[in-house]
């Protein structure tokens, strides 16, 4: 039987942007965001309630508390100035879930084919992957906590799937 795991739960709404651009624009955006955007593949940076996740060579997912869409868009556009970029509000596109507890990793292993071992998937790592039949962004936000982002319409499936996996030991 797995060790106790906190019940997987939906996280509250958040402000989310997808920023796609080159390195110069990224540096500028980081200054506007108040957090240097990660340059290393599959790494996340987070501080002060904001986070930036590396999703691709050009692509970062920016997370902030809910309701900051206009504020953040303003700050980022101002920082980016005329540098070529694409900044798109995806706050409502996604839903977030948390899987936490000593057995969180094992629970995810029910449906995520990646190796989540400490040596391979350390704290601060993030990647696109699948959980069951849903596409997710998986971010190990703390030693025993994983932050999952999935499509809004997949959230109930992912939650139901995690609950079934909990039963499945």
């Amino acid at each position, binding site marked *: 039987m797995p060790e106790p795991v906190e019940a997987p739960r939906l996280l509250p*709404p958040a402000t989310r942007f*997808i920023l*796609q*651009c080159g390195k110069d624009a990224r540096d500028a955006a980081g200054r506007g965001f108040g957090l240097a955007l990660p340059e290393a593949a599959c790494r996340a940076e987070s501080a002060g309630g904001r986070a930036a996740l590396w999703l691709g060579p*050009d*692509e970062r997912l920016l997370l902030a508390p809910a309701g900051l869409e206009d504020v953040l868009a303003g700050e980022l556009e101002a920082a980016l100035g005329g540098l*070529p*970029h*694409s*900044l*798109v*509000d*995806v*706050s*409502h*596109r*996604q839903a977030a879930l948390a899987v936490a507890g000593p057995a969180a990793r094992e629970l995810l*292993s*029910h*449906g*995520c*084919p*990646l*190796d989540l*071992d400490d040596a*391979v998937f350390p704290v601060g790592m993030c990647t696109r992957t699948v959980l*069951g*039949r*849903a596409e997710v962004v998986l971010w190990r936000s703390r030693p025993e906590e994983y932050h999952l982002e999935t*499509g*809004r*319409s*997949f959230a*109930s*499936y992912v939650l*139901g*799937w995690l609950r*079934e*996996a909990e*039963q*499945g*030991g």
Partner: protein
Amino acid sequence: MSAFRTASGGRVDRARRLRFTFDGRAWEGLAGDTLASALLANGVHLVGRSFKYHRPRGILTAGAEEPNALVTVRRDAARETPNLKATQVELYDGLVAESQNRWPSLGFDVGRVNDLLSPLFPAGFYYKTFMWPRSAWARLYEPVIRRAAGLGRAPEAPDPDRYAQRHAHCDVLVVGAGPAGIAAARAAADAGACVILCDEQSEPGGALLDGAPAQIDGLAAGDWLARAVAALAADPKVRMLARTTAFGYFPHNHLGLVERCTDHIAAPAADSVRERLWQVRAREVVLAAGAIEQPLVFPGNDRPGVMLAGAARSYLKRYGVRAGTRAVLVTATDAAYQAALDLHAAGVAIAAIADLRPAAAGVWVEAARRAGIEVLAGAAIGGTRGGRRVSGVTISGRTIACDLVLMSGGYAPSVHLFSQSRGRLTWSDSMRCFVPSQSAERERSAGACRGVYGLAAALADGAAAGLAAARACGFTGIERGYAVAGESATHQAPGATPPAVADRGKAFVDFQNDVTIRDLVLAAQEGFRSIEHVKRYTTVGMATDQGKTSNLNALGLVAARLGKPVPDVGHTTFRMPYTPVTFGALAGAARGELFDPVRTTPMHEVAVARGAVFEDVGQWKRARYFPRAGEDMHAAVARECLAVRNACGVFDASTLGKIAVVGPDAAEFLNRLYVNDFAGLGVGRCRYGVLLREDGFVYDDGVIARLAADRFHVTTTTGGAARVLAMMEDYRQTEWPGLAVWLTSTTEQWAVIAVQGPLARRVIEPLAAGIDLAPSALPHMAVAHGRIAGAPAMLFRVSFTGELGYEINVPAARGVAVWEAVCAAGRAHGITPYGTETMHVLRAEKGYIIVGQETDGTAVPDDVGLAWAIGRKKPDFVGKRSIERAGIRRAGRKQLVGLRTRDPKIVLEEGAQLADRPGIPAPMKPVGHVTSSYASAVLGHSIALAMIAGGRARIGQTLFVRVPGGDVEAKVTIPVFYDPEGARLHA
């Protein structure tokens, strides 16, 4: 305690007696028994009927390779598992098992007549017999054969059990926990590797469970095993999986394992997991799968009481069961002598050892003779006697009475997984078997599965393989040996023995599929040369046991008949699964609600509350129509259509695919991709876009809005969202990497509420803030930003109905509130929610195509009347050169037209074929087909869209639509039935 149970010894718990039933009769066994050992302990040998001839069959083996003893184990009506091997079914108190393939009873089986009629059923008989008359195949032959074939019955109730799945990664996966596997796991773990050790049996130990007489590192083998297993279990770097079969070896060291969690438990907890599928990705694999003893082929070798020698030894030493009272051993190797000596020591009379080798001699023969056992060297086996149990065996013309025949044709390494991994096998002449030669994966075999026999050798081989595997992962480890003392004299090469051809009686090669020597001889006579063809013709090796006890004998026989060496004949393909796997394990959690993600829109619950009937569109649930009390779909759709045409309707269009195309080169990007001119599209305006594939055929369509100089909002079809994004990303990254443009899916960001109908503006007006709805400010195909019902919104003036229409886009979480505000504001105007069915009718009335309905992947824009969309001045776009090919421009291609049936009430079948005159006998060459067809409430007659060869030139002509029972007369029209001038759009 029964007479067949020994007084002591073995791994059964004599203090724990378990009750069970077999075919309704109550028996008793012991904890630690399998169903097979418990039945043998009660003297029961007849446990099944064979597949084709319904011959009485007994227990041949003691493991996963069992071909005969297939049973159904029943817990309740829904938990009835057929085709389990009695040799693997662990006994629990209250177990209920039934034999299979017999009627009315195991002892008296009507199907037995097949055995007497067997001359009628040679190999391939169904290819030869059930040919004529042809009509009888579907009515008679197939149903009867299907009923006669197949072994157990599949339960009909849904499977109530829970199945789990797990992904696991490790440095070294060791398959098989016999001496070689344990030594490999130990060595790898000692070097620091993370190890998974799996074994299909209830406990690790492999051959050691049968009680090796040796000492390992100064301990009795059994004590050493207990200590080694405990040490591995306590090691945090080692995961041990018992009752876990590695059934498939997939590319890149990806192996499928199935763990049976509760089948051995009398009363599993209600929510417990029955089976768990492990998908293991291992850096290195050690296969330590052991070897399988092979039967000898002689007449009557399938009679109950004829058993593999090693199996009889296993029943004795592991389960404390004597499989008979008086035995004859028939052997072609030294390997079986130990069994005879052990049984002899346990009080089973060994009437004789018939050694088929002409010059049988050596330590084993001497040991047997010392024990007072008669050894007949160069013996010829004539056959067995008996009915439901063997009563005698004929050796070199002399009949010897017995109730147990032990046989051994030697051992075959279990190379199944190795071969599945595409490793190359080589024939060993000295061992007369196939052994692994060259690995295709990062894999190594150890112990008996590569022909290394004997305890000391297996331990050393396993330890070396485990260490090598760990080293291949980058660990350093030191070699460590095992001191083995007291091991029996090593066996002479215990390979398989090719069978001699017998003239009389049935000598079985494949027990489960009832294939005899004669069938194989017949196949050779009829010209089959390839072993793969012989296999298919005779079905040898094709049963659920995958030929574990038959392939090698069949191969030897065929090679002999063809006069070729065995390696020239080759071997059949080893396929996964190694042993059958339940659908439950493969499905795991993917059943019921979790079978596939069910995607719902932000306004889904509102539609549910309004009583919507939903349809599945891919993974999406979409409201199809909103019936009122007493309405069927036809009535509801007619009402919804009229509401949109005469007043106002509201529709959830959220599933529409949406892509934000942003960057300085966004306009250029879309200009290159779509057929339309997007460079010239003004900010705040929309354009209907058509996307082709490179071959010029229509791939997707949708409205594209320019929100800013560098920002476009592209919509796609619901089903095309993912593939259009993928295609765009492909071109962006590989064709035009120089363009500064980026793509972001925004499908789920927006709730889309379509408000359509002549009163639409009046409904929205009071809700809109910061948007001028005047037609001059927001004309057809324009977009504006502002607030709708307080929510930040993009308001598109677009129409897929032909009416004045708007599509309100608000952030998804605001969708419900805005929808309800729209409904409240529209109440006075008769606003009516409508679903996808109404949407389809409305667009068909206007002749708007649906990609995938009017198009089928072979239509260019002109075929479906979209040539007007092509930007004529553009130098290029995806598909441009293809649509300029001569073949695409020739006359006679199918073109989109409308159809009006002469009888306005007839709604044609979509897909119906058209002819230019009635009554053409089938098969006819149609001139086209119906693509969309509906009853139009606003027009008062049916309408249809069709793709017809040279269709536009046929407008005004009459065609005939083929329907069951005749032809329906229909007139070809333009494909726009309602408001062809488009006045309503621009209202």
